């Protein structure tokens, strides 16, 4: 039985893991995908569907943690233009 607190903490840990990417594009993509994914399944009432979605989230968490290590091995050499503050 997955409860609301667990869902919220999974969302938070996915967002935190996604923040470690040195590349702007995949960082924003991960943030967008997690928030959209959680919002899409926000109103599920069927327990088995909730469990399924939670398991999917856990799987994605493993993927992010693995891929972050690869990206950190090859950080971009210049800052992305989207990261520059407007003067």
């Amino acid at each position, binding site marked *: 039985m997955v409860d*609301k*607190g667990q869902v*919220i*903490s999974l*969302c*938070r840990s996915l*967002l*935190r893991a996604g*923040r470690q990417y040195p590349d702007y594009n995949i960082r924003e993509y991960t943030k967008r995908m997690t*928030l959209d994914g*959680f*919002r899409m399944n*926000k109103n599920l009432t069927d327990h088995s569907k909730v469990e399924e979605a939670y398991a999917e989230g856990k799987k994605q968490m493993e993927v992010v943690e693995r891929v972050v290590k690869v990206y950190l091995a090859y950080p971009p050499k210049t800052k992305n233009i989207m990261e520059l503050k407007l003067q």
Partner: protein
Amino acid sequence: MAARNALLRHLRVNVNPSPALPFTTVLLRRFSEEVRGSFLDKSDVTDRVISIVKNFQTVDPSKVAPKAHFHNDLGLDSLDSVEVVMALEEEFGFEIPDNDADKIQSVDLAVDFIASHPQAT
């Protein structure tokens, strides 16, 4: 001449003058400043928090007030609150632990928490 050379061979003169303050005390003074940490000014924190909440996608900027509650006044749900707290973490440059983040449900709670946290920048 030989006497002069013999004398110089035994004398040692300081070429570099010693600094006015001993090096170690200067280091210690700076280190203690940084270790103590500094708390941010509350009105400054309030302005920054309000601007972040106003820029949030699903928020009506005119409803954002210092006492605004995320769920009751701004109509945000728990996922939106998570997103707002993440944005606050990024703005102020420090991590907010999960159980504290769950308690931040309004603008003034966020301001109080951040203003009382020494690691906020």
